[in-house]
């Protein structure tokens, strides 16, 4: 058989015939190409081979999405491709989620997230939520168009570590300041890490509204949240010492 036939693009790859290492690499490619069924199949194969749900999540799915995120940031991939990759990851996550819950491992932290009042654009917020969950956070998704009352009620009910607010519109992003100012008035601002994101935002804006950080994409949100949680644990540890 000629080499070009062996590696014909149109030929289906038998995922179960691949070594663990090759399978994970193939899953990264499949995530990149947004192939949900292949990701579900690959996830099941890894579990059948005795991989823990956490390892499959970290090495196959999260790492694959990290690569997608880098290429989106660099302008190689665009929103449609990222959405397809996210759909594929959701397929794998649906298989792993119950198994992860069974382990009883505590989440790294808890996050309440939602788009601000007047803003119905949730693509970025959904990506952040998914990647935060993939990184081991418990995510409470308030959905779209959230008033300050709704955010505060959620903070009171769920007592998260992190509040995440998202906006796509220049006209709706100032509402983040309304929420943060209300938190200050009620004396609860410092009880939470406040992260903000959305296409028209920047670090200067985050600082101006009193957020802890601006997260330019889902990967940065995970890194930032993880870093803030470490600091939080260190402060608590020092207080208890």
């Amino acid at each position, binding site marked *: 058989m000629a080499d070009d036939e062996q590696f014909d693009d149109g030929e289906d790859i038998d995922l179960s015939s691949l070594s663990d290492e090759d399978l994970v690499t193939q899953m990264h490619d499949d995530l990149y190409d947004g192939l949900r069924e292949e990701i579900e199949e690959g996830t099941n194969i890894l579990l059948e081979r005795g991989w823990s749900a956490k390892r499959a999540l970290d090495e196959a799915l999260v790492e694959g999405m990290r690569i997608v995120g880098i290429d989106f940031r660099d302008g190689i991939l665009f929103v449609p491709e990222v959405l397809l990759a996210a759909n594929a990851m959701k397929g794998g996550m649906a298989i792993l989620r119950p198994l992860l819950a069974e382990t009883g491992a505590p989440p790294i932290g808890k996050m309440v997230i939602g788009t601000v009042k007047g803003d119905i654009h949730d693509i970025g917020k959904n990506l952040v939520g998914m990647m935060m969950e993939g990184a081991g956070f418990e995510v409470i998704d308030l959905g779209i168009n959230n008033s300050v009352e709704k955010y505060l009620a959620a903070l009171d009910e769920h007592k998260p570590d992190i509040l995440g607010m998202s906006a796509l519109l220049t*006209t709706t*992003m100032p509402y983040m300041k309304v929420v943060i100012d209300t938190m200050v008035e009620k004396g609860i601002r410092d009880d939470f890490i406040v992260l903000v994101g959305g*296409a*028209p935002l920047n670090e200067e804006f985050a600082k*101006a509204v009193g957020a802890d950080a601006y997260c330019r994409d889902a990967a940065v949100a995970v890194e930032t949240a993880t870093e803030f949680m470490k600091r939080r644990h260190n402060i608590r540890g020092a207080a208890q010492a």
Partner: protein
Amino acid sequence: MSAARAGPEVSSLLIACGALAKEIVQVIRANGWEHMRIQCLPAELHNRPENIPEAVRAKIRQARGTYDRIFVAYADCGTGGLLDKVLEEEGVTRLPGAHCYQFYAGAEVFEALHDAEPGAFYLTDFLSRHFDRLVIEALGLDRHPELRDQYFGNYRKLVYLAQSKDAVLEAKARQAAATLELEFESRLTGFGELESTLVEFAGEGVEAAPPSAWKA
């Protein structure tokens, strides 16, 4: 060698978003502004608004020495104040508001529209004309129609802000609403604040646009 200057009668330049080119040319012709020229940046820059400020800056610097006065026919356009920062550094002003829907409809009308229905997707004449390329193809919906709900699941209606009475464009806008499975509404705005702002610029000069619609 310095850049060749435009003739004495050509002293003003509008650096415009490509999405406004046709309308601006109409305004220039209707007003007989022979001293005014227009140079456009691609409308597709809106898919990466973070690239707009530096693209505008490059155009401004290219035009220096050639034109006496420069005006930028962009709104904030999703740059979150970064375009204003560049314009402040360059000493150039722009159109008012957050985006073209706002200056076409007028700030108050647009705010009322948005408050009444945050889930409204807006089209202008330009977007109606190029809907397939700039919306359907750019969002990948031609190749992946299954993404429709992720993009438009939270939208309720499509509002066509018409700059002209054009039955063909209105029919296209109506068809766009049907394609996206949204209710349809049409409002004739004319050129709105686009024209009034350009008239000011063509006269004694324009007041600076609000430094930032986003500043808290």
